């Protein structure tokens, strides 16, 4: 945890500074800083504060949905240490799940919105959208995320960590949460993420000679290569599209119910 890593160092300082400031501002006066637009959430702000006190600059970024949920991004080299603190000091004894996200935009098929199938017309006609990340940010293509909960105090927390682009690697959680064993095996085979120190990192679902990592975005879904996007039929612009206002204006509940049921079935 205390090992100094040069690259994330600068950000970490920023984040460590920002997190207490944010909580103070939220507690004192919500309107003081224009950056803090969300409502204060005592429980989750308190959790961030406790976590920051425990693990210091290992907390890179946080995101709170007031009254609902909490996301925290952890510095990669502190991944297992933070899990240890969260389980033994903060009491999150319940292990929910662990998995990964591939943030690369899918290069296959046409998206539901586009007019042409990019697989048929070649990849060049529409450039891939830029890679974006979700709550609590991220710098790399692959992110591992896990959810743990303290069932006594009734909160859950989603922890995220950047694991790299080319040969993603991260420390194992199995020494902290024994249940992470199978989840890490699944993530290993589906995303090709290597978990250092895992006692038996091998395939869990797929046959032993299977090649590739199916949940990576650049792994083609063969069913879609044969017959692209059957779903497009349901969402083609209907003759009535454009008068959405009419739909909304039609206040009769029975009508709108029937229509929306139709539209979704």
């Amino acid at each position, binding site marked *: 945890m205390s090992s100094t890593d040069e690259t994330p160092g600068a950000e970490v300082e920023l984040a460590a500074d920002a997190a207490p400031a944010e909580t103070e501002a939220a507690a004192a006066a919500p309107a003081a800083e224009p950056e803090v637009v969300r409502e204060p959430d005592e429980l989750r702000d308190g959790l961030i504060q406790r976590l920051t006190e425990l693990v210091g600059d290992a907390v890179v970024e946080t995101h709170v949905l007031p009254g609902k*949920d909490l996301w925290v991004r952890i510095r990669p080299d502190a991944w297992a240490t933070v899990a240890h603190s969260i389980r033994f000091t903060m009491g999150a004894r319940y292990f929910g799940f662990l998995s990964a996200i591939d943030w690369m935009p899918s290069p296959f098929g046409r998206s539901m919105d586009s007019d042409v199938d990019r697989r048929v017309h070649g990849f060049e006609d529409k450039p891939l959208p830029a890679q974006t990340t979700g709550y609590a940010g991220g710098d790399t293509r692959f992110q591992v995320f896990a959810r743990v909960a303290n069932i006594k105090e009734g909160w859950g927390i989603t922890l995220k960590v950047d694991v790299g682009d080319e040969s993603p690697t991260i420390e194992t959680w199995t020494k902290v949460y*024994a249940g992470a064993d199978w989840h890490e095996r699944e993530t290993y085979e589906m995303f090709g993420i290597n978990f250092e120190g895992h006692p038996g990192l091998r395939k869990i679902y797929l046959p032993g000679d299977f090649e590739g990592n199916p949940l990576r975005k650049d792994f083609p879904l063969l069913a879609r290569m044969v017959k692209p996007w059957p779903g497009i039929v349901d969402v083609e612009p209907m003759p009535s599209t454009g008068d959405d206002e009419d739909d909304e204006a039609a206040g009769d509940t029975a009508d709108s119910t029937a229509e929306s049921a139709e539209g979704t079935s």
Partner: protein
Amino acid sequence: MTAISDRQKLAYIAAQAADARVNVELETEGMILNMGPQHPVTHGTLRIVARLDGEQVISADPVMGYMHRGYEKLVEVRTYPQVTTLINRIDWLGSFANEVPFILAAEQLMEIEAPPRAQWIRTILFELSRISNITLFLGDMAAQLGALTPLFFAFRDREFVLNQIEAVTGGRFHPNFDRIGGIKDDLPKGWLAETKSAMVKMRSFCDEMELLVLGSEIFEARARGVGVIPADVGLQYGLSGANIRASGVDWDIRRDNNIGLAYDQIDWKVWTHTDGDSFARFWVRLQEVREATHMVDQLCDGLPKGPIMAKVPRIIKVPAGEAYVATENPLGEMGYYIVSKGDLTPFRVRIRTASFNNVSIAPWILRGVYVPDIVTILASLYFILGDIDR
């Protein structure tokens, strides 16, 4: 109750120790026992590779993937309304319950809420799924231990509930009835009264099972003290539902983290047991079925009037964001972690199923037990293969 259980535990430990001594004296050779992929206890195709020393298991390794369908990849190329058809097939015995957390997560991202009547009907169907699902468990667990009669009772009485589900949704097992913003249709005429009479039948089924199974000495001898899970180990492995409540953890998502369902408006109780063994898991599930019938009664009585669908756009695009919503499904905590980029399809969906975590404790809990106890323990953990493999 505890006195008997302690005595039996001691007897079990003594027997194990005696067996170990015999093994040391006779220098028995180990063997590998392969259970499955087709085995009556596995509710699908799960294989257990157990290394044995005499009658005892040294290590057991579950092998799965015979039914892996890749739902997490498939939902990435389907629109949100299409996804519910797929995820119905995860836990096929309680399929309506599979749809609800996904819909709730999507609703959380879209910041819409289903009208009260839709929430109540969802809750009724959710509990009916629970009853039909666990009813089968009650019969099945007894069947694993050699009593075949309860299984036929379970199949017979489950029909009352399935008929009610079919009357609303049109499907016995795959309703595909939940929609973003509400539900597909309203209840048919006279359904509430029929459901309440079905609940009366299910309560008498529970009484019957209590006499038949819990009152059986053979069942007690085979289930008491077998497969004890301490609370802390269970939590570490992410056990949920009746499995963790049987270990004395008073935790139920329906009560403690209820999102978008009507559980907070009715009067009910969370059942726990302190023993943590196979018997306790059976007992807790039996109580839960009976509790669920009372819940359905209350829900039928207090069903509010009003619309069943909120205002939702014709073409559903979910705003960018992330959401995790879990519900207390028949098998335990089931949740969907949705990552949306504002498209018609989800960018990534992580399906957190109860059985995957519940079975991941198997290597730990099967170490050192006798061969016949493998069947008891696996049956009492209660998993559905579709729920493990997804």
